[in-house]
């Protein structure tokens, strides 16, 4: 019991500490791939500190919602991120939130962010919120369909159980799992405002989605929102890693060595996924906004196909 809570708290601290590093690493790798030197991998930490120390400017007609939303968004994303097994399974909270809950918690964060974008009443905030909700209307069901596939195969919606199943003798790649993986990756790109869908580095007005919603934020509010965004990226990578490359994760009641191995494996998975993500981003161009529904629609159809294949192929336990 206490060990479970210890693992849970360690995980909460770990994801919080690692998230900016992951963002920094993706930027660094991207810069190197583009033959630039790029800022240090620790730059996001410095950015957060700088933002926190700066004066916060709030628009005149902003309401309490505008000021409260960043903290609530950060908290829901953080809680969602602590539900995904990273270096060890058997977390104390894993009995409280399965993978559907994780999707829904991210939905709550997005809901609040979209409202915050509308609060000041500017046209850019509206653009961002409106497009974000349109993307979500395809990305969220696609994600759920992928989740359904995995849950049907493993006979559980708990991430630790799915992860354990994939490690077991019946785990491994089959056609449904492959389709679900592709769907999840597409959703992850869309939900994290990565390149073919949105550009995290852009400030060109008409192409922004995420940046447009948070345009009015500054100072500590912006810092909290940036931290939440990097947590979300970490969450998606952890989720995909936990399900599709579950090797090395420390099991229930493991010793100190297993934890060390788990931590090392987790760090390695993050590094590999960060590299693959950036490699993909440098290879493709950003889409027009109204091409994105097609892109996300592919994910939805793949997810649905994967689920239907599961439903008709055999009777899972």
């Amino acid at each position, binding site marked *: 019991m206490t060990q479970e809570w210890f693992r849970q708290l360690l995980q909460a601290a770990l994801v919080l500490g690692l998230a900016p590093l992951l963002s920094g690493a993706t930027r660094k790798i991207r810069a190197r791939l583009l033959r630039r030197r790029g800022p240090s991998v620790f730059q996001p930490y410095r950015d957060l500190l700088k933002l*926190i*120390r*700066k*004066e*916060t*400017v709030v*628009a*005149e*007609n902003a*309401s309490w*919602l505008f000021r409260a939303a960043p*903290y609530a968004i*950060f*908290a829901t994303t953080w*809680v969602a991120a*602590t539900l995904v097994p990273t270096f060890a399974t058997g977390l104390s*909270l894993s*009995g*409280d*939130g*399965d993978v559907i*809950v994780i999707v*829904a918690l991210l*939905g*709550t964060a997005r*809901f609040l962010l*979209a*409202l915050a974008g*509308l*609060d000041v*009443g*500017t*046209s850019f905030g*509206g*653009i961002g*919120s*409106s497009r974000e909700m349109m993307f*979500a*209307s395809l990305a*969220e*069901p696609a994600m*759920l*369909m992928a989740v*359904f596939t995995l849950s*049907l195969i493993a006979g559980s*919606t708990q991430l630790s*159980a799915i992860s354990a199943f994939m490690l077991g003798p019946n785990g491994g790649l089959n056609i449904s799992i492959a389709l679900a993986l592709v769907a999840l990756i597409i959703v992850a790109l869309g939900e994290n405002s990565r390149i073919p869908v949105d550009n995290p580095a852009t400030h060109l007005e008409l192409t922004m989605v995420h940046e447009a919603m948070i*345009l*009015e934020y500054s*100072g*500590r509010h912006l*810092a909290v929102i940036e931290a939440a965004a990097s947590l979300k990226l970490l969450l998606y990578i952890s989720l995909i890693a936990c399900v599709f490359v579950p090797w090395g994760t420390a099991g229930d009641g493991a010793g100190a060595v297993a934890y060390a191995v788990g931590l090392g494996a987790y760090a390695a998975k993050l590094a590999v996924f960060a590299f693959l993500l950036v490699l993909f981003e440098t290879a493709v161009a950003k889409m027009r906004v*109204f091409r994105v*529904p097609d892109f996300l629609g592919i994910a*939805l159809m793949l997810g*649905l196909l994967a*689920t*239907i294949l599961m439903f*008709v192929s055999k009777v*899972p336990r």
Partner: protein
Amino acid sequence: MPLSTPHCLSQLAASGVGLLFALAPIGIFAARRPLGIRLTYAACMLICAGLAGVALLVLLTPASKLGFIHIPVGLPLGRTVLGFDPLSAAFAVIINLATAIISGYAIGHGAHAREPLRIMPFYPAFIAGMNLVLLAQDAFSFLVGWEFMSLASWALVVSEHNSAENRRAALVYLIMATGGGLALLLAFGLLAGPGGGYAFDQIRLAASSGVGSIVLILALAGAGSKAGLVPLHAWLPLAHPAAPSHVSALMSGVMTKVAVYGFVRLIFDLAGPPLWWWSIPVLLVAGITTLLGVLYALMEHDLKRLLAYHTVENIGIIFIGLGLSLAFKAGGLGAAAALALVAAIFHVFNHSLFKSLLFLGSGSVLTATGERDMEHLGGLIHRMPVTAVAFLVGCIAISALPPFNGFVSEWLTFQAILLSPQLPQWIQRLLVPAIGAMLACSAALAAGCFVKAFGMTFLGRPRSGAATAARETDRWSRSAMLVFAALCLLAGVLPGFVIDSIGSVTQMVVGSRLSPQAALPWFRIIPINPARSAYGGLLLFVMILIATAATAFIVRRFAAHSVRRSPAWDCGFPDASPATQYTAGSFAQPIRRVFGSVVFRAREHVTMPKPGDTAVAKLRVDLHDTIWEAFYAPVIRLVEGAADRLNKLQFLTIRNYLMLVFAALVILLIVVGTL
């Protein structure tokens, strides 16, 4: 203690309904004075609270200790049987709880009515009718209650009769209600059979699946039209918003639940053991209803109509649960059937809470600004802070987002969907994941819809003078909305208690129940087994609260303390005019482009004048109500055409009339002769 006799609870409930009926004529006199109006609503509130309490007692009493009252009036050779069994008691708790709070709101809000005499007598009669439907244990009193409910609510819809739009809504409603009532009448007639035993226990004994199949179609038409299943939903978005707002809440949040009850009673309880294919039409209709309901809602800019369309979506979700339960029941999977039914009834409860809350909120906005059109609202979070908080809770809850209640029932529905590979028929195994995808899609679209509803109404800058001058609503209304909001949270973090209360219903209807949930640590719920799935709403809520507070504390502790208010940045091009904000139409435009071009045949026409020409550039969007055009317009054309033809009969000569009468007589004689 009078509670010891078996049917004292039924007597208590029946006398409560009797009091409500008695209140209706009193309302005529009470409507003359504001105090009388308040007292009438207060009486409704107290009686409904009492009825909810009685129903809760019934739900907690073992079924063997329950008794019904038998009254020797009714149809010839029939008798009236009244009383709650677990199924009707569960629905009675749900509808009377919501009705009590809505009546509390009306104590403050009802004073704004322009013509109270058109509302007061019908309001208690409407509630009494709904309760009679639940109390009825025979077909006759069920239908009497049903018609009372339909007609009283029709009178309330037409209470603001000055606008042509409302009169049309009332007409469509009346026609649909008549048709629905007729379908139910036929359904009961078929079930009772030639023997004519109209009491439910007699029907249960005589039930056979052969008749049941026709009853299923009739129940889908009769109860489904009242609930708002596509394509019989057309009256709902017209009639619900036309009534005064607290009545809208009653119609959308409560009356649709009575319709769901009617369906469950007919199909799960009376129609006998289900056949395997019964679930297919239910699931198909439910899935389409869910998706179309939310898409219609997204296209709507009128706040109350948006909410009404969204009721259609939620009814779809409820019927998905019911359809799944029916499939599992037919397939002999008792535990899964119980889970799906719990999900459906939980959603019934949830929807009665948040939809009532949202309609009450829209009523407050309407009173404060005189506007229902979101394009003329905005910025109300500053002027109406309490209403805004309550409405926000309702919006998050209805979008099925944790930690509120809407998520729990949706999560349970998903869990039921994930059990469906166990179903024996491959057709269902193919259908159910598609329905699951529709449900997932509609959940995400609902979130978009309510970002729009809250964002356009309460956030941003006011888009009209009325919105700038809005004032917060009265104390009664505010408290009622806050009570609803608190219940939304409570049901979300302590779902185990709700699930346990539904246990006796599933035991009665599908012969199985979920394991007790409320005693689990941290009030988590484990519907099947802990290795499969679990949800701990309370712990997650506490974690989110702690994380929010800790972050806010730490960041503010170390952050620079200066906060400066300045004009909006807006990428350097702020515009003083509120008209440059995103509107409800522009917010929904991307979704309209993605989904609307097929569903609504949406077309955009841009008129762009040549450079130098000072004419106005125009953007026109054509949307088609495809359901109306496919199902209703042909019927209307047919009826109108026939009426035009028959119109000639009014202008015949006396000779022709005599001939007509003679011909009719001959034909009748031939018919009678051949029989």
